[in-house]
């Protein structure tokens, strides 16, 4: 894994992992993760650069639809497995946290 698995990154990956075949666009991602779009964008850029996520523009006529085209994001097959592993590793307590727990347990 070439980048830090921040809480925001985990939220985005979890949203995409709920249904890896489903494509999500900015507003949906924002609603599912609770993140503002500006926060999510650099993370998506980074995930795309690492090949975890692929994106495409929606193929519509903006005049007919009366809205701009959306940019859809989805996990790649490699990205889905790496994301699952990454989230699981991030949830695992760190050795430092385990040591702290042990110390607090000893005091109690």
């Amino acid at each position: 894994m070439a980048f830090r698995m921040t809480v925001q990154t985990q939220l985005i990956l979890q949203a995409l992992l709920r249904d890896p075949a489903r494509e999500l666009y900015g507003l949906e991602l924002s609603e599912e993760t609770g993140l503002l779009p500006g926060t999510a964008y650099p993370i998506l850029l980074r995930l795309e650069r690492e090949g975890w996520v692929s994106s495409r523009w929606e193929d519509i006529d903006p005049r007919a639809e009366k809205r701009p085209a959306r940019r859809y994001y989805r996990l790649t097959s490699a990205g889905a497995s790496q994301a699952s592993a990454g989230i699981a590793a991030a949830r695992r307590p760190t050795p430092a946290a385990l040591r702290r727990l042990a110390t607090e347990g000893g005091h109690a």
Partner: protein
Amino acid sequence: MTSPAVAAREDRPPWPVRFLACAPTDTFRSRLWAAVGPVVINPKSVAFFLFAFGWIIILAGIVTAEAAGGGKAWFAVCYNYMFLTLTGMSVLEASGVVAHLVLRGGPRRPILIVSVLGATVVLGCFVIDMVMVINTPLDAPAVAPDLLGFASISMLVAMVAVTMLYALRNGSGRFSMAGQLGSGAGSLTAGGRWRAMRLAARLMPRDVGRRWLAEAESFLAEAPPTLHPGAVRSYLANAPQTITEAWAGYLTGRVRATGGDLPSRRL
């Protein structure tokens, strides 16, 4: 129940008032817009209205004074009236030109024509003002303005102009950009921040910058208006990180494409 649009139409003043409420150098299209759109009497149009009436008063005053064989007091009243309205026109017109040049949004207007016409009015009023001051005879009525009076009146009108410009930037109604855009109070701040976003996009590689803006536009088009200020703020707050990511992605792509040999300057 009457809809807000119908109520607004019913509350509108008659068309001559709406027509006169428009700025003197506005284009015909803008005047037409003012005649059919919601109207708030603005200071510039009031100055214009008073200025136009001033000529009638001046002519009447001159005729009366001539007939009475003097009438310095009447002359002074006319003189001050013209002086005040001319200076007011000049400064308010200048503020209008600055507003057109500095501010964006609102009804589309030919900025160059408006600016040239406005500048002409400003210069014209200023020249007439100065001619009046210079030609004021030493035995002119005490109430006629001297250089100190000129400065005081200019200061007063400048304060009005600054207030008007402030209203243009921050207020509501026809003078605010939000009012002109007709899309709520958030539009003004969002408009300013959108310019900042465009600036930030220029700092990214071209494709990424365009995509960032397009995605932001797409988001804002579909998100509820209450989310807009926070969303734009978040785009701006995360712009430095996005710029870094964008360049990192760009360079990574270049490295991958060239097989690790980035083009370097050859000595």
